[in-house]
């Protein structure tokens, strides 16, 4: 049976005792807490600011438009940003799956959940692919003129931090290293500051786009007869 226990919470009472905890774990928990609080703050802003009231008479199916916004509209067959840029799109998808997988593994690591060797191999191979995708996207930003002109330091830092986080996750699967915690902490602290916060705003943006197109009966798109 797997013994589940949050790292650092080792005393019998389960009480939080940061003085008995390794410094890197304290740093990680602190970063995680700050990150979560900041994300809650950003999310609460979206709610607090609210959506603009629409007085026009709706003509579409709003519910279907919202569902479409998160599903069909995201399909690579529907977006030029995907089907005209398939290598970048594929790398981006792998990279995002790798990122979410790394976050999931981070939670498992915090809870001391061990992985069977075979799963470790599978995870490492996928995360390595994801790491390469991240590197590819980074190199593209460095060398493609138009992308370079569009980029600011935050774009590079965000890409580097996430890619490094994935690399550290692979390493951690085989070798428990303090650098994993440091990298993860920096990423968690940085996430709410720069463009990585699109993690939260992305969903709201797609919701608002669905409101616009849904009320007007643009989404879901009609099949042209």
């Amino acid at each position, binding site marked *: 049976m797997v013994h589940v226990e949050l790292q650092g919470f080792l005393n019998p009472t389960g009480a939080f005792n940061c003085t008995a905890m390794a410094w890197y774990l304290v740093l990680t928990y602190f970063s995680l807490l700050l990150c979560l609080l900041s994300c809650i703050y950003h999310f609460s802003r979206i709610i607090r600011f609210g959506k*603009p009231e629409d007085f026009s008479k709706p003509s579409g199916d709003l519910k279907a438009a919202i569902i479409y*916004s998160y599903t069909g509209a995201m399909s690579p067959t529907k977006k030029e940003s995907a089907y005209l840029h398939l290598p970048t799109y594929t790398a981006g998808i792998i990279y995002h799956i790798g990122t979410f997988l790394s976050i999931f593994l981070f939670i498992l690591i915090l809870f001391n959940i061990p992985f069977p060797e075979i799963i470790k191999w599978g995870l490492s191979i996928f995360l390595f692919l994801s790491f390469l995708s991240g590197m590819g996207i980074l190199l593209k930003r460095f060398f493609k003129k138009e992308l370079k002109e569009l980029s*600011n330091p935050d774009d590079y830092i965000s890409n580097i931090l996430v890619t490094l986080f994935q690399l550290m996750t692979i390493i951690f699967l085989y070798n428990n290293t303090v650098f994993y915690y440091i990298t993860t902490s920096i990423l968690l602290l940085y996430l709410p*500051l720069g*463009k990585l916060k699109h993690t939260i705003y992305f969903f709201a*943006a*797609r919701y608002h786009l669905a409101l*616009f*197109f849904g009320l007007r009966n643009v989404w879901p*798109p009609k099949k042209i007869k």
Partner: protein
Amino acid sequence: MEKITESQIEKGLQILKSLQNGKFISHANSCVHCGLCGESCMYYLAEKKSKFLPAQKVDLITSIYKKYFTFTGKTFPKLVNARELDEKTVNEMIDLFFGACTMCGRCNLHCSIGVDIAFLVRTGRIMLTEMGLTPASLQSTVNATISSGNNMSITTQEFVDTLKWLEEDLRDEVNDPNASIPLNEKGKDVMYTLNPREPKFFPLSISAMAKVFYAAKESWTISTEMYDITNYAFFSGNLKEARIIANRMVKEVKNLNVVNLVLAECGHGDRAFRWEAPNYLKTKFDFNVITSVELLAKYIKLGSVKVNKEKIKEIVTLHDPCNLVRNFGIVDEQRYVLSKTVSNFVEMTPHGIDNFCCGGGGGQLAMSEYNERRLKIGEIKANQIKKTGAQIVVTPCHNCVDQLVQLNSHYKLNVQIKTLAEIVADALIID
């Protein structure tokens, strides 16, 4: 280069602050600078310069937002390219928001994230207008509407004379001395609006619609007080003036006590009134608003008018106005009408909600300072038309008609440009 004062900056920032809502902050914080939006924008496709990437336009407005309204932008401006609202920024804003975007919204659909880029550009235009920096040519169009009641400054006498002349023509054409273009009649089912380009340059499109109304035995009227459906103030970002213009139309609908307001073939005007006016007037309309495209489709569907598609044998293609398809959801109706009125129809590639803008939208036709750029980006549309082999290009938008007429001459397309009403009128069978 525009010189700006502290007071202008203050006004710009105040309006930006007041425009912040859940929609704005969601879109302003979502762009990841992937740069994959370029191929969806005709400015970028035509110019192939980084500054024309839709993402650069997003970055321009969000860089100001970050600088004044976010922790990171205020504390570490260089990290996120947070920019001061100064002369350099303002001049870039004028060039990109007014001169390099028709707000067609094509990039919105294709953005990898789903950022409403046209909405952010319009926010930038609202800021510039609040700062008194609307391009003079565009503002003069708005001023003409405010002072004369229509954007072409047509006098009432001139307008009435034109309609009387068209009425005589209609009587001859349908061979009925009682056929009429009713003016200012109260209690009718339909109040029909116009784009002032019609009485000024394209009167035959009014004749065409009058002929359709005659065939459908419609109870209709045109107001000589307020017939202009366009609202360039909506595009310039001047909400106060947009309200004045829209309010006049609402008042006239009530004054004439009509049941349905029928919007002329004018993409931006239709959108600005049907979808946007209720929001800037903060009111729900208590009368029906439909486009003439929907009405034409309804007439044919219900058999109110009879048409013969064998009358039009030329190859016909359709240009979808951005404001009608992407910002209004009218995609099938114009196709249905064409399926019944022309015998040889060819779609452009791409079409429907993916269609490219003609290049004349977003007030571009009114801004002569960007004429060269407007014609250059129009090459995409010209090539689309060429590839269809069409002899007639139909578009239910007078603004698009204007741009297409210019593209026709500039790129030697040798096509006829027609509105949907003109096509229906040509295919009409009058008993």
